[in-house]
């Protein structure tokens, strides 16, 4: 196919596309670093569920919404704005549609996932949706609820059973606390489900009493609660920016900053001390900023948040973070300082975000000069194996936690 960026100056035509071929250099990194000798868990990988929208719509029980969605699948997405592939420079975006996968009963999303997992040396992934990251912005709450339930039925019936290496989360339709509870309890113990997901771009306070029932249930399961961030260029504040880089850098950070602030300032760590809370796809550099900011204010205004028994930064050090998109400064001492503040050796979970444009290879962690081998292996897999209670005996029969 001719790439959409081809013009009278520069043309590029590609006959076929293969993720394995694109990631040849990743496979070389895997072999050079012997990444296949220990378990690697990718705590934030994606599929493009919108490419299977007709399959998902089949699971929408509401006849009227089912009809509407078939007639116009666009009602299941919220416009968040932006252009992730950098004007076509990230070629896997346009080319993925010509990548062929076998028709052998295993879903295409799983085939594609296995290709990049194997190339990078990743053993297991937790799969997040893509377009649905913005579903919390849809003004029709009932659409979020119906779509979330349909997606969960499709995920647990057609995707996760294909391969135990692929794990998933319960997608909570958070704009409806009642429905969030119902879906959490309906799908929380399904095969392959390892946690509960709140997509962060939304305007609901996480400390609303209406959510306590759901958090109590999540705590009972022992599974993590994951806040996956995103952007919304249409947010009144973000709409002041005129470059996608700004909307992306700020948005993916800010939504998790707000939810984190509310989580801490309402002492939810104290109310639900056994929930492992995971902050996903916000990078890491924001954590030292927020920790220092909250600590400084807390020492002056502790009466406002009397539920805390220690400094906000100490609660932040108890929570978990996925690594991608990991800010890689030229002066690595900045990153080393961040790792220290978040207790990275026990609290950081490697994430690729593949196939999205700002994906991180496992080498981003493995090559850090200030980590020893034990810390690298914990971050790349060991920490996730603990908090998600993963059984890795199928690939590492003799695995023992470090």
């Amino acid at each position, binding site marked *: 196919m001719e790439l959409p960026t081809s013009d009278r100056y520069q043309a590029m035509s590609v006959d076929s596309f293969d993720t394995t071929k*694109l990631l040849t250099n990743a496979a070389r990194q895997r072999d050079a670093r012997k990444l296949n000798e220990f378990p690697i868990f990718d705590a934030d990988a994606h599929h493009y569920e919108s490419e299977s929208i007709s399959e998902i719509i089949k699971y929408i029980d509401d006849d009227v919404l089912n009809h509407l969605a078939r007639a116009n699948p666009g009602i299941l997405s919220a416009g968040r704005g932006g252009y992730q592939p950098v004007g076509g420079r990230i070629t896997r975006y346009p080319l993925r549609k010509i990548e062929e996968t076998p028709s052998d009963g295993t879903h295409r999303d799983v085939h594609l996932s296995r290709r990049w997992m194997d190339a990078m040396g990743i053993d297991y992934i937790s799969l997040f949706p893509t377009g649905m990251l913005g579903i919390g912005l849809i003004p029709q709450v009932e659409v979020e609820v119906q779509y979330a339930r349909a997606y969960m039925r499709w995920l647990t019936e057609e995707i996760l059973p294909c391969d135990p290496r692929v794990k998933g989360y319960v997608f909570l339709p958070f704009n409806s606390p009642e429905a969030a509870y119902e879906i959490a309890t309906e799908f929380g113990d399904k095969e392959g489900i390892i946690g509960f997901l709140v997509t962060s771009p939304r305007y609901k306070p996480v400390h609303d009493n209406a959510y306590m029932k759901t958090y109590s249930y999540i705590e009972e399961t022992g599974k993590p609660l994951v806040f996956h961030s995103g952007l919304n260029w249409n947010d009144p504040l973000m709409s002041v920016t005129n470059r996608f880089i700004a909307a992306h850098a700020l948005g993916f950070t800010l939504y998790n900053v707000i939810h984190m602030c509310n989580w801490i300032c309402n002492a939810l760590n104290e109310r639900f001390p056994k929930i492992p809370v995971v902050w996903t796809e916000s990078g890491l550099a924001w954590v030292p900023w927020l920790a220092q900011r909250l600590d400084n204010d807390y020492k002056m205004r502790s009466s406002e948040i009397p539920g805390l028994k220690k400094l906000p930064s100490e609660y932040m050090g108890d929570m978990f973070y996925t690594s991608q998109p990991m800010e890689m400064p030229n002066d690595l001492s900045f990153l080393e300082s961040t790792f220290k503040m978040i207790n990275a050796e026990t609290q950081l979970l490697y994430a690729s975000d593949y196939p999205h444009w700002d994906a991180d290879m496992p080498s981003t962690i493995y090559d850090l000069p200030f980590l020893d081998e034990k810390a690298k292996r914990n971050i790349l897999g060991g920490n996730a194996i603990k908090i998600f209670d993963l059984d890795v005996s199928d690939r590492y029969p003799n695995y023992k936690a470090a």
Partner: protein
Amino acid sequence: MAKEILVGKASDFKEGGKKIVPNGKTSEIGVYLVHGNWYAYANLCPHQGGPACEGLLMAKVEEVIAEDKTYQGMRFNHDEMHIVCPWHGWEFDIADGQAVADRKWSLRKFEVEVRGEDVYVLA
């Protein structure tokens, strides 16, 4: 002494064209003909190791600022062509292989020799 790798015939290249050739068993070199000049770079991005030469060759994007400092839009500058890594979009100046966003980083550069019709890379 540098190893010579036969790339192919010069006439096989058109302006803006490239060819990626093996350099041993585990690496490649991308050879380009741009604005009548030959360039060769390792197919290995210094960012995360992506196959930089397998991506697009794109013109530099410039801002258009008027004399009164007002913004007037953007334009392509085809005098400066960039190698774009397909993994993450890092861009490298074809002239010297330096990353245009941070010139402390660069692609490994190789010499190209054209002898008669044959194009060689010195690796």
